């Protein structure tokens, strides 16, 4: 059997908050920086989503369907495409029509609900499932959680929601001597198969590709395919942010040419074969249980949840946010649900991260705030207004 190569790309855009002052609390309930969201989205659409979708579509056609891959597009991103760049949705639809692209399910708002509340997690997952079906006409079968967050408990919840396959990180501290290049299964629910990111090969593209200080620079498709072949195991999972192409790695560094050549080479290779996650899980047997008692993720050196919940600011914001869940359920108000979802986006907590010294570079790159403290103050002002609205609605109900 040929070695499986599984490409999966994460597509997400946060709903950035506007500068929301204390004086706005209770007076103005529009929380979002529409201008920034529109400008950023349109820029990335031009630099990344549209050209890369076009490239992949051409490659699928050229290689007669041998290129297979998967996307997970957060609900927050879908909303922004719909509003500011509907042509992006259209280009994903064209990819969907080829039958070579799998669309995965995640939490609608790219949230941390899997860690906070089973009920809210289910709510977000079902909402995203419905959105994928509505936009692309397919029912997602494979699950990937926000930032690949996973634990035995999270996996069990995902299985109970009807998914048989889930993606996560091949974190070194979990894997130990084991290789991420095999399929594993959840410790509690053996029916849930796990595909683990090969972080080394994934990051060669996502992080190191344009790094001139890297010993392997410049990376050629030929050499990369050689590494894929040399990798031991049944499968190599290359999971990365879709914004890698054209945004994090600019077009000028040759990333598009590399991807074109690499997909052609793998498709033509006798030992390698592209698979979607669903297909990989169907054809490969699990080699064993994987025990993950504490949550892992694909973020930072630690590969844990400390990028979002590592300091007291983040923890307090998170606790305050999820303390509202019961009231939201009682009220069941569409407008409130909508804002509640956007406030759950993990990005807001990420901006409050104080791990400046280890992974500060990557954190700064994505952060609209000068300091984590500003991020916290702004978020809490917004959340305070939201809490007032929730309490008012509760009072009206009674």
């Amino acid at each position, binding site marked *: 059997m040929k070695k499986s190569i599984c490409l999966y790309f994460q597509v997400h855009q946060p709903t950035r908050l506007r500068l929301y002052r204390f004086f706005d609390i209770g007076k103005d309930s529009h929380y979002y920086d529409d201008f920034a969201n529109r400008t950023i989205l349109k820029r990335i659409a031009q630099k990344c989503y549209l050209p890369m979708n076009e490239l992949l579509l051409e490659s699928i056609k050229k290689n007669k369907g041998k290129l297979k891959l998967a996307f997970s597009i957060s609900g927050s991103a879908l909303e922004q495409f719909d509003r500011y760049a509907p042509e992006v949705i259209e280009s994903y639809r064209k990819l969907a029509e080829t039958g070579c692209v799998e669309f995965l399910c995640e939490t609608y708002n790219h949230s941390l609900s899997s860690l906070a509340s089973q009920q809210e997690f289910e709510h977000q997952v079902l909402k995203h499932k419905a959105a994928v079906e509505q936009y692309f006409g397919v029912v997602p079968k494979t699950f990937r959680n926000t930032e690949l967050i996973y634990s035995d408990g999270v996996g069990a919840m995902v299985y109970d929601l009807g998914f048989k396959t889930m993606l996560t990180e091949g974190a070194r501290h979990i894997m130990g001597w084991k290789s991420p290049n095999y399929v594993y299964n959840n410790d509690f629910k053996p029916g849930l198969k796990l595909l683990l990111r090969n972080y080394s090969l994934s990051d060669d593209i996502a992080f190191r590709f344009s790094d001139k200080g890297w010993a392997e620079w410049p990376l050629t498709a030929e050499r990369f395919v050689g590494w894929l072949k040399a990798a031991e195991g049944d499968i190599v999972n290359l999971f990365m942010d879709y914004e890698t192409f054209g945004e994090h790695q600019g077009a000028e560094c040759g990333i598009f040419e590399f991807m074109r050549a690499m997909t052609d080479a793998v498709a033509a290779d006798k030992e390698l074969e592209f698979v979607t996650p669903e297909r990989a899980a169907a054809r490969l047997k699990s080699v064993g249980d994987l025990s993950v008692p504490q949550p892992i993720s694909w973020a930072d050196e630690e590969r844990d949840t400390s990028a979002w919940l590592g300091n007291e600011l983040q923890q307090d914001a998170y606790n305050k946010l999820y303390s509202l869940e019961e009231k939201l359920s009682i009220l069941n108000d569409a407008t409130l649900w909508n804002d509640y979802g956007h406030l759950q986006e993990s990005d807001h907590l990420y901006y409050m991260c104080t791990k400046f010294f280890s992974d500060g570079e990557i954190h700064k790159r994505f952060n609209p705030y000068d*300091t984590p403290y500003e991020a916290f103050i702004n978020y*809490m002002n917004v959340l305070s207004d939201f809490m007032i609205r929730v309490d008012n609605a509760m009072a009206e109900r009674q």
Partner: protein
Amino acid sequence: MKVLMFGWEFPPHIAGGLGTACEGIVKGLAHNGVQTLFVMPSASGDEDQSCATILNASDVAVRNVSDTVEEFLDKVKFINVDSSIVPYVDPEEYFEAIEKMKREQVRETTVGFGQKFKFSGKYGANLLEEVSRYAQVGGTIAMEHAGEFDVIHAHDWLTYLAGIAAKELSGKPLVVHVHATSFDRGTDDMVDSRVYSIEKRGMEAADRVVTVSDLTRNIVINKYGIDPAKVVTVHNAVDFSGRENLTVERGVRDKIVTFLGRITFQKGPEYFIEAAAKVLKRTKNVRFVMAGSGDMMQRAIRQVARLGISDRFHFTGFLRGQEVQKMFALSDVYIMPSVSEPFGISPLEAMRSNVPSIISHQSGAAEVLKYALKVDFWDVDAMADDIYALLQYPALADFANKQGFDEVNALKWNNATAKLKKVYESVVNQ
């Protein structure tokens, strides 16, 4: 009676409270029949000159007029011109101003005799150098305007050397006015020795030392070793003329307890946060606001998050102009838990805006405000009690509000400067 007065700033272009105080003093003195020649490092020309003649030190050329001047200037040279920043941080809200000024600072430092020196009149990186230049100009002015004044009055350490120069070259008596000391800016073991030595020198050279509170008077006597007989307290006042209280529509129904000032060690922000957490354990219908910025802000935010009260405790950042009035208009209780506050004008402003205030015993304002509630800065239980009481018992809040309003309106610069005039008279007639 005529006075030659050295200040550092004057409205409308001010970074803090010193300029406002100087304006009040000058106007009050005029009311009491004292004429003022007010010198400042960098005047803009739009200062209100109805009560004083304003001299811009940047327009004065230092002349090589006599040996005495050179001799004096030799003495001034002990100041290290390469010094790093010594932010002058007494009155309210310098933190941001300093940051901004540091960026704008022009590093033009060489100046010889017969030349004008362009003062920034700010509190930036060249501060010590400006202080020594200001002394040179001060001496020159005293000679050029000899016979036009009976007494010299210098405000805070920035102007003390100018005051000393003027005294040496004119022979007129010197009054130095202490609005703040180094001990209000740092802790006892963190006092800037260069600033301290200028302060001490000014106080020793002065014929009288005026302090803004008895608290500061004690510091001057105990920490600077000044003879108590020549240290006089003249409490600050506040000029509310032409000010209307704002009415602001409220966004939140909860009561609001406000701290407004620099978020630094001296202002006691952590005690306020602890008290807030205690109050929130007993009642939910209250929000706390910390308005301002400063070097303890990040620590304060972490403390709030750790206590789990960040949905009820808000930070506004630095407030400008009208926003300050707006903040007072939104407040139900004002709190100033300062660890060390020479005077502290902000509770007066709060009470004038009909906001009952809680202030620490460790503030000069506590000596004059009968109708503010007073606690020790470290006594967070008492602080929480007082906040709770003002929120829950309308009778108390109404009483503190009405009496406090009348009380602060009675604190007039006309009265304070009448005292100041007596100080002048005591040294002129010696």
